[in-house]
């Protein structure tokens, strides 16, 4: 009797599908998941529709894993519906938690998105300046599209969230830890907590050797340097976000000689990932090198030092802009 099983929903909003792949990459454990839960809503998997969700009692779904950001009014509507129907609403993955890469759109406006896609595109042929609209009259009737919101929002901007599972995407092993806890009925941390990750920084899991006294003379762009595979990347002048990013992934990127780009979001207790990173960089810049430099040459030296960070927003807030203290440019 399926009714005895707790109900599970998986939903995505504005996202890439990587969070779904992370769940499917539970591999054989995915079958275990299906055995423990009754999957009541998952548009790519089963027939249940929005109206079936609407027909469920309030809090009738034990657990909803909601991935994706809120980019359209339709995304927001689904978030509110699933909030009402779920005992536990979990922001699953970076988009739902903090906006992820699509949150960088908040550096510009909705109008700029439409212009760059439909008017200025290199291969776009649009002499009449047509833009997709909420309602279009065609000879046979009227066609409707969901409206794009002015800014990209995160799940908690439109609905109360019980837990946050960070990562772009969350690593399947960490996802399973959470699901296993729920399946076994073990206690969860207080509502509002981040789960499926550690509380410290990626550096805690990184095998690279850190020189605590190392000072950086200049930052390097990724294309400029093939770092050695043993020493801390930051010590080598590569902007590695590990120091300002929550652990839990296992420091996968530094293990293949690439810097952490910050996809697990802020460590416990840190409000703003970019601010944390800038503060950390400030403390390891070699100020000795500019001691005694004439004042009129200081700006030039600073430019040189920071030439490796031509895009601070995209470097420090690649995943967290929409949830940052700055929230974008406006």
């Amino acid at each position, binding site marked *: 009797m399926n009714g005895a099983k707790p109900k599970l929903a998986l939903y995505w909003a504005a996202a890439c599908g990587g969070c779904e792949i992370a769940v499917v990459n539970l591999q054989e454990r*995915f079958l275990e998941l299906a055995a423990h839960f009754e999957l009541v809503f998952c*548009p790519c998997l089963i027939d249940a529709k929005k109206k079936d969700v609407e027909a469920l009692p309030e809090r009738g779904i034990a657990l909803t894993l909601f991935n994706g950001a809120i980019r359209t009014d339709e995304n927001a509507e689904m978030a509110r519906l699933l909030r009402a129907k779920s005992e536990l609403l979990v922001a699953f993955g970076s988009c739902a938690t903090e906006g992820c890469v699509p949150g960088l759109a908040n550096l510009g406006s909705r109008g700029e998105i439409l212009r*760059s896609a439909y008017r200025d595109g290199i*291969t776009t042929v649009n002499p009449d300046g047509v833009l997709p609209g909420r309602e279009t009259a065609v000879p046979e009737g009227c066609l409707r599209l969901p409206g794009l919101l002015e800014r990209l929002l995160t799940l908690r901007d439109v609905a109360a969230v019980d837990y946050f599972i960070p990562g*772009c995407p969350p690593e399947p092993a960490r996802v399973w830890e959470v699901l296993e806890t729920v399946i076994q009925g073990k206690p969860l941390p207080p509502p509002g907590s981040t789960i499926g990750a550690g509380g410290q920084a990626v550096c805690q899991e990184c095998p690279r050797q850190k020189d605590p006294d190392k000072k950086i003379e200049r930052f390097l762009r990724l294309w400029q340097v093939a770092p050695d595979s043993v020493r801390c990347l930051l010590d080598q002048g590569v902007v590695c976000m590990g120091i300002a990013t929550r652990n839990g992934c296992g420091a996968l990127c530094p293990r293949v000689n690439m810097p952490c780009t910050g996809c697990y979001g802020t460590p416990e207790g840190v409000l703003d990932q970019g601010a944390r990173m800038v503060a950390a960089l400030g403390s390891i810049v070699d100020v000795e090198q500019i001691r005694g430099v004439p004042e009129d040459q200081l700006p030039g030296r600073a430019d040189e030092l920071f030439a490796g960070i031509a895009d601070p927003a995209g470097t420090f807030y690649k995943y967290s802009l929409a949830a940052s203290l700055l929230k974008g440019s406006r």
Partner: protein
Amino acid sequence: MTQRITIDPITRLEGHGRIEIFLDAAGNVANTYFQVPELRGFEQFCVGRHAEDMPVITNRICGVCPEAHHLASAKALDALFGVEPPPAARKIRELLYMAFFVTDHTTHFYALGGPDFIVGPDAPPAERNILGVIRKVGLDAGKAVIACRARNHHVIQLLGGRGIHPVAGVPGGWSTSVTEAQRAEIAAIARQNLDFALFSLRLFETIVLKNPVYRDLVTSDVYLHRTYSMGTVDAQNRVNFYDGTIRVVDPEGAEFANYHPRDYAEHIAERVEPWTYLKVPYLKKVGWKGYVDGADSGVYAATPLSRLNVSDAMPTPRAQEQFEAIHAAFGSARRGGRFVPIHHRLATHWARLIELLYAAERMIELAEDPEITSPEVRRIPEGVVGGGVGIGSVEAPRGTLTHHYVSDERGVLRQVNLIVGTTNNYAPMTMSIRRAAERLITAGRIVEEGLLNRIEMAFRLYDPCLSCATHALPGTMPLRVLIRDCGGAIVKELRR
């Protein structure tokens, strides 16, 4: 009275797709619209970014095929910085890509497209999914499917750093080299993939090709469209997924174009429709004539079947045997250097399995190549070259993928243009949906559940990445068909 049929959601791109079917007074199909109601705006927010961040940023376009974006992006950066990767880096990239093709095509065949055949187009909807497939082919085979996905995602993580959203692509190569132990492990996995591909083709032969009902379905005109075909070919005009030139053949099979990917903008233009967020590409030199077949229409397809249609041969022996077999089955004769194109779109499922076999064979070649363990995997560029333009392309599983970056002299992006695999097929999908609807809905006769699935099959064959989740989970398409009167009131609802 005009009736309107709404299929919503289709849930194949970032959550949502929608089909609107309008019927005329007699109850025949007047028109159909295939809407994509979502936009995230990558072209806008990639401006201002470090160019070298693009392989990681554009992964997030698609979590199902991040490997395709990662590599197209890395190749665009090679061009932007004017630096050719060392041979080992090229081979590592292609090796990762073959592992990805194996897992991606496997997912489509067993979880998404295959259930229509393995379980049956008219089987109860609750059976038409991966679990139904496992019941039909047995638990051992089901576990083999899961194991295939698992081992290839393991390879992707070994080579690219992460199983989803890999990170190792850099301008001029790859961030890390391959150890001998890794090479040996991947070679063993590749050999398992070959066995799995051959098993899958045998299954297809047994279940589909030997079943007269399915043969009739595959060869029926419900799923027939004579359009141009596009795909990447090597110097011998054979299929290649990682690199080559873009070849376009006309509906009769004559070569229409064969160009370097950097010249794509001379050949592809995109149309904006007010009723959808997805643009509609077409062949610029033919022009846009609407959603119609034929050599006068700029509509082209870029699918596994299209790739076979543009190629003279497959580069590996077993895939070549299958290449001959599929053309023999459709009575396609050789004309000039190659076979006449196959236009029966359901044959795309077979073509996809032939590509799975090719990817497995190519993966073995690469994994057994001693050069792949060379420590020289990266060349450091001097800086941005030329006018700060970098264009890169690969064949994504769902079509030719092009990344085009324009940067300033510091390598900060000023403009980005992307033509994504599935996007190429927007017009053909629209036409296939319309054709299926026209054939199946006549004079008010509604074919209930079967109608839903056959409309579904019309676009499922393209393996659309309209929702990345399409490829992620066992694929019972949730469909709800609403039949409305002119005022929008619901006359009837069909669902499964």
